[in-house]
């Protein structure tokens, strides 16, 4: 019973990370038809914003010493700010190009951010203790669940409900949903393209920063590659969820988390090192039977 509960919590917390990542990608894809591969590097940059630039092995904590109620908004603002800046500086110029060009631009931007971090901080992972009080375990029905896992899941639920309420109840949310479905029509009704796209980037960047906080606390390290794995899984989740469908992205994120966790348990020990190969195999199966994704979005052909 205890170990089953542990597996469930592992699956949910991993799925939460993937779901948050997939949402960040799907939000931008929805309004711009851009698959933003720089998203993973925004995650890494949000963690490094807590450190003072230095190539030493020992991290010099800068904003990382802030109390949590300042630290969390700080990191979220960094993620949102970086994401909005990447739109204003880079992606705005590519709005009328085809999706492949935009995607390549996002790869390039990702490399720029990554190498900028490399220059400032070196490639060595640095140990940081971010929100250390979260690593203590909690006993639930005989299972020892790290407090951080519970918080990760809770935060994700709050984010999901908050985002749903935001999209359904606010004027900005209405404009975003309209723009995601048919951007040109939304603009002909006076919806400001720049505002909606900036809003999507800001939300997406804040989601990246939330992942950064979770990953940073979980691993206790800052690593310039730390966003790469989540980014890949999140991208896969948006594809199998149905590009542009927010609900699909979240659903597929949790599904991937569950598959990865279950594989870890049921695969024979020798095969566990190849877990990801089995996960991708499952992804291929899903795409063979539902090439349009689990929940296909409307109006994916229209863009700015």
């Amino acid at each position, binding site marked *: 019973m205890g170990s089953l509960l542990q597996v469930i919590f592992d699956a949910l917390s991993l799925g939460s990370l993937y779901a948050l990542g997939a949402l960040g990608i799907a939000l931008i894809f929805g309004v711009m038809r851009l698959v933003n591969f720089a998203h993973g590097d925004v995650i890494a940059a949000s963690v490094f914003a807590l450190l003072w630039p230095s190539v030493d092995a020992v991290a010099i904590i800068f904003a990382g010493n802030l109390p949590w109620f300042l630290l969390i908004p700080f990191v979220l603002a960094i993620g949102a700010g970086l994401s909005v800046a990447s739109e204003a500086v880079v992606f705005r110029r590519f709005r009328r190009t085809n999706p492949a060009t935009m995607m390549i631009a996002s790869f390039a931007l990702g490399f720029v951010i990554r190498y900028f971090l490399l220059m400032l901080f070196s490639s060595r992972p640095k140990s940081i203790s971010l929100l250390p009080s979260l690593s203590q375990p909690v006993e639930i029905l005989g299972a020892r669940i790290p407090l951080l896992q519970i918080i990760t899941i809770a935060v994700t639920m709050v984010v999901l409900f908050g985002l749903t309420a935001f999209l359904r109840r606010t*004027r900005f949310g*209405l404009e975003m*949903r*309209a723009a995601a*479905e048919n951007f040109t029509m939304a*603009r002909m009704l006076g919806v400001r*393209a720049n505002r909606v796209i900036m809003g999507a980037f800001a939300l997406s960047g804040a989601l990246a920063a939330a992942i950064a906080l979770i990953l940073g606390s979980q691993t206790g390290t800052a690593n310039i590659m730390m966003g790469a794995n989540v980014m890949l899984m999140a991208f896969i989740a948006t594809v199998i969820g149905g590009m542009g469908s927010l609900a699909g992205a979240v659903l597929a994120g949790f599904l991937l988390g569950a598959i990865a966790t279950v594989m870890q348990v049921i695969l024979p020990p020798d095969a566990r090192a190849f877990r990801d190969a089995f996960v991708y195999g499952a992804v291929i199966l899903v795409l063979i039977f539902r090439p349009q994704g689990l929940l296909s979005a409307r109006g994916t052909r229209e863009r700015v």
Partner: protein
Amino acid sequence: MSLLALSNVSVRYGRLTAVRSVTFTMAEGEILFITGPNGAGKSSLLRAIAGVTPPSGGRIDFADHDITGRAPEDIARLGLSMVPEGREVFGSLTIEENLMVGTGMRSAERGWKARAATELEAVYATFPILKDRRHTQAGLLSGGQQQMLVIGRALMTNPRLVAIDEPSLGLAPNITDQVYERLIALRAERKLTLLIVEQSSTRAMIVGGRMMLMRGGEILLDGDARALGQSEAMQAAYFGYGDH
């Protein structure tokens, strides 16, 4: 003073010229039909006016503003509302949400929410079917209902000019009659200026007003709809008889 003025407007897609040096003006309150065969450049012309495809040459003025090359949202905010071909409802949004999208452009004004609510009731009064199904997803409506929705949605922006691309496309004739009946009533009520693109001139001849015939990206004829519709020049120009 004209409300809309085009001078030498051209639209090109790559090497293809869809609209060649079109010049005309519309007065406030006027109803103008642009007719012409498939590929005449009618939709391209509307898209240029709405700012969706910026013109490659010429100048467009609306309500004393030069709107050449301006963004679609800026043009909409000046009071030019476009109802594109194929209706383009937001299928996953409810009817009411569809109607409300365009009211955001007034959100800087005081009391806009109350005005939007009044406007919504006015649109529901014009199209009662929309009120009955206000919480239905727009994608589930029939073609005629969707046409009413997009016209209502355009009206919600409180426009001075509504440009409609093929309102009768894909509709049964009696539904088209209904749509036009409402349009004409709305025009009288609100002093709306209407720019309507239709492939055939039949509707223009029934409704009356001004009609232009477009073919090969140019305006060939311009005059009273009923007089033009019966003329031989119209037939010849439409089908291209006597082309050099």
